[in-house]
């Protein structure tokens, strides 16, 4: 695909959980090395947006182009194999596996120059090396989050979908995560963040999209953040 | 209310006319199984508990009826009383054990316990073991009504059937029935609302077993013969099919379903020999895959679509079939050492 084509292009995305119509025509694009945040109140549809990109909702319509491929009909694992990495809201650390087993679990995508080696990941997240033999459930919240992020880095995914990674973590760990994301961005990773905490998201994002009732109601570029702050606060109910 | 009344009158009219069209013994057998399936539906369709061992109550009741009337000279109504009493007690015992586990484990426990009962009864020489129990007398109802006449017997069976169905309708429409449906839809919610869910389940189980016992006793009365087949889990499977095919969670469903299955089995019996079970199994499989709402459920869905055009179907007071979709605490073991 051409260098100017977006890594992710979403057009008129509608999604359902059972009978519940959650997304009503989401549209946006993300280009290589961009970091875009999805902000909004609880229940607005931010997590659903991430999940529907991977086809994890019950039903979806619209166009979702990932790395140039129209993935509307594709099964989840096929979309993931294009180079998509997902950190779910609940972190999804498997209690039946040790920390290192969790890390090694996702398969490495073919032809990926981005795939980090285990050593590189332990370098970014030293805590994980110390706890590598611990069962998954014995890790602290911060360690679980680092593990969740680390394991998708190992696969070579270059489009990262991160769901509320700062939630419930101590400020010092949040800072570590922010540093990690800045580093990833500079290495060419494309990142889509879902965040409650816009103080965490704002310094990292090139653009912020506010989602309300399953639609994008406001787009704020980094440069506009100052002047649009009141509007943002109004939308987020802060 | 009005609709129930109309359907009720139609139903009784149908019952009155039926023996002129259908062979009475077959008809009575259908009514017994229809009662069996309705009792079973109370548990699976309305409470959401799949028992795979209802044959235990059906068969044991039949044997008890046979033993009391033939060996000890009880009159039929006393025999039926014993049948119901025994299956009620059994229901309470088996239910209290099975309810200790949820979801699929519940079903497996009921299956295993009914198998236990099968073996137990198989051991008793007095009950005929593998040869079955023959020559169950028709007797004199209340000492005065001679049941050896098929039509007289038919009236008795029909009356019992109507009373049984009426009981099911009453239970389903009562506050108790509403709680059962709540348990089926979302058990954790029901618990959090303060309902002693296990007690409701046990009561529903026992009630279902009692009515099943009535059906079993009546069937033994009609056929004059009881065999281990009625205790075998194949019979439990049959009643599941009848309920599923007719429509779980509806009143009419089990009746239609049992009529269909009994008639089908009857019709196939001398034609295809061993292939009966293959055909029944195939019907079962198709039903599970394609026809989960059953005759009544699918019929209601079609009628609603037709009556309302393309707009949203309105929520009906009568619960639609396909009820056992919300699973309660389904235990999710992970495979570990």
């Amino acid at each position, binding site marked *: 695909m051409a260098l100017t084509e977006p890594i992710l292009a979403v057009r008129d995305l509608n999604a359902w959980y059972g009978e519940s119509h959650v997304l009503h025509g989401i549209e946006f694009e993300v280009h290589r090395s961009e970091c875009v945040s999805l902000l909004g109140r609880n229940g607005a549809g931010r997590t659903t947006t991430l999940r529907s990109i*991977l086809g*994890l909702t019950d039903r979806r319509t619209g166009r979702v182009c990932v790395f140039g491929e129209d993935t509307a009909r594709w*099964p*989840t*694992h096929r979309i*993931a194999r294009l180079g*998509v990495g*997902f950190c*779910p809201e609940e972190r*999804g650390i*498997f209690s*039946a*596996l040790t920390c290192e087993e969790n890390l*090694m*679990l*996702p*398969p490495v995508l073919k032809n990926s120059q981005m795939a980090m080696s285990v050593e590189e990941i332990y370098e970014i997240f030293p805590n994980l090396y110390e706890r590598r033999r611990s069962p998954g459930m014995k890790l602290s919240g911060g360690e679980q989050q680092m593990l969740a992020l680390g*394991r*998708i880095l190992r*696969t070579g995914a270059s489009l990262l979908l991160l769901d509320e990674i700062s939630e419930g973590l101590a400020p010092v760990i949040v800072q570590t995560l922010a540093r990690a994301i800045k580093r990833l961005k500079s290495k060419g990773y494309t990142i889509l963040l879902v965040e409650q905490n816009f103080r965490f998201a704002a310094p990292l994002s090139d653009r912020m999209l506010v989602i309300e009732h399953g639609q994008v109601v406001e787009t704020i570029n980094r440069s506009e953040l100052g002047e649009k702050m009141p509007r943002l606060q109004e939308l987020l109910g802060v | 209310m009005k609709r129930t009344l109309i359907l009720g009158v139609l139903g009784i009219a149908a019952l009155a006319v039926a023996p002129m069209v259908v062979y009475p013994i077959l008809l009575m057998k259908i009514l017994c199984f229809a009662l069996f399936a309705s009792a079973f539906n109370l548990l699976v369709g309305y409470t959401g508990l*799949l028992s*795979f061992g209802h044959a235990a109550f059906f068969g044991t009741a039949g044997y008890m009826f046979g033993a009391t009337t033939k060996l000890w000279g009880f009159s039929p109504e006393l025999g039926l009383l014993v049948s119901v009493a025994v299956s009620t007690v059994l229901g309470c015992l088996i239910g209290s*054990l099975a309810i*200790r*586990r949820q979801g*699929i484990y519940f*079903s*497996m*426990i009921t*299956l*295993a*316990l009914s*198998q*236990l009962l099968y*073996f137990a009864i198989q*051991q008793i020489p007095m009950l005929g073991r593998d040869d079955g129990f023959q020559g169950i007398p028709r007797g004199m109802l209340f000492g005065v009504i001679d049941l050896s006449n098929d039509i007289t017997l038919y009236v008795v069976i029909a009356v019992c059937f109507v009373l049984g169905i009426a009981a099911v309708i009453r239970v389903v429409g009562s506050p108790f029935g509403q709680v059962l449906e709540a348990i089926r839809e979302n058990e954790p919610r029901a618990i959090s609302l303060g309902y002693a869910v296990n007690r409701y389940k046990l009561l529903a189980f026992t009630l279902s077993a009692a009515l099943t016992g009535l059906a079993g006793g009546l069937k033994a009365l009609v056929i004059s013969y009881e065999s281990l087949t009625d205790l075998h*889990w194949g019979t439990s*499977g049959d009643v*599941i099919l009848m309920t*599923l095919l007719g429509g779980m969670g509806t009143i009419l469903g089990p009746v239609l379903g049992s009529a269909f299955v009994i008639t089908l089995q009857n019709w196939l019996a001398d034609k295809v*020999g*061993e292939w009966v*079970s*293959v055909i029944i*199994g*195939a019907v*079962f499989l198709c039903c*599970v*895959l394609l026809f*989960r709402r059953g005759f009544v459920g699918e019929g209601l869905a079609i009628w609603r679509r037709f009556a309302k055009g393309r707009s949203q179907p309105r929520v009906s007071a009568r619960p639609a079939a396909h009820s*056992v*979709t919300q*699973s309660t605490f*389904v235990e*999710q*073991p*992970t*495979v*570990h*050492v």
Partner: protein
Amino acid sequence: METIFGVPLNAFAGQLVLGLVNGCFYAILSLGLAVIFGLLNVVNFAHGAMYMLGAYLAYVLLTMFGVPYWASLAIVPIAVGILGVVLERAFLQWLYKLDHIYGLLATFGLATIIEGLMRAQFGVSGQRFPVPEALTGATNLGFMMVPTYRIWVVAASLLACFVVWLLIERTRLGATLRAGTQNPKLVAAFGVNVPLLVMCTFGAGVGLAAFAGVLAAPLVQINPLIGQSLTITVFAVVVIGGMGSIVGSVVTGLALGVVEGVTKIFYPEASATVVFLVMVLVLLLRPAGLFGKGN
């Protein structure tokens, strides 16, 4: 002659071995059932039918094509495994989103069809499968004589269980399986082809049952009904032991086989029901099962 509890030592030990052999079959089958349930959330009512098919296939291969027992041990599980994959794709995959009971009911339907077809084809009379040459006769264990074939069955079963344990607990594939049991959607989001994994797991599970069938072929009268009561007994075994643990399934299966064998010595009429009685006891005393729940 030495006696133990009033029974001659030889007879006691003999029944114990028989019980152990039965226990091996319980172990293998409950293991397969547990693995299938873990990933698919389907309780495979047709598991016993697969065991029966395994025995029959070994018999047919021998009598019609002259395929020896040793080759059957490899061919039959693969063949039945492929059948399992076909059945999973055709019938079971549509049911995963629904309540678990539909999986149980669908496999019940399948079991009825399979057994009915076999009955229509072969009737209900039993067929004999000869013990393979190398394993005929008896071996002297010092304190008793044991038919050599039975020693082989115990050894082969324990080996099979060990291999399954190894695969699940010590390999990448096994880790993926364990993770898929907990959170299949997330595993798919990592790029693992979960439908393929599910398909193969079902195939492997029923292949394992068929393997037990081949092992059983020289020991039983092969008829279409041998799977039925085994299915229900294995259900009781998994209720007792729980389906969350491999070691739990195997230990429970073996233990119950031995319990059954011992019961046969002292109170033969109860031997068919003792497993269910143990189940009742466990439900009263330890409702969550001997090895508890996985999480």
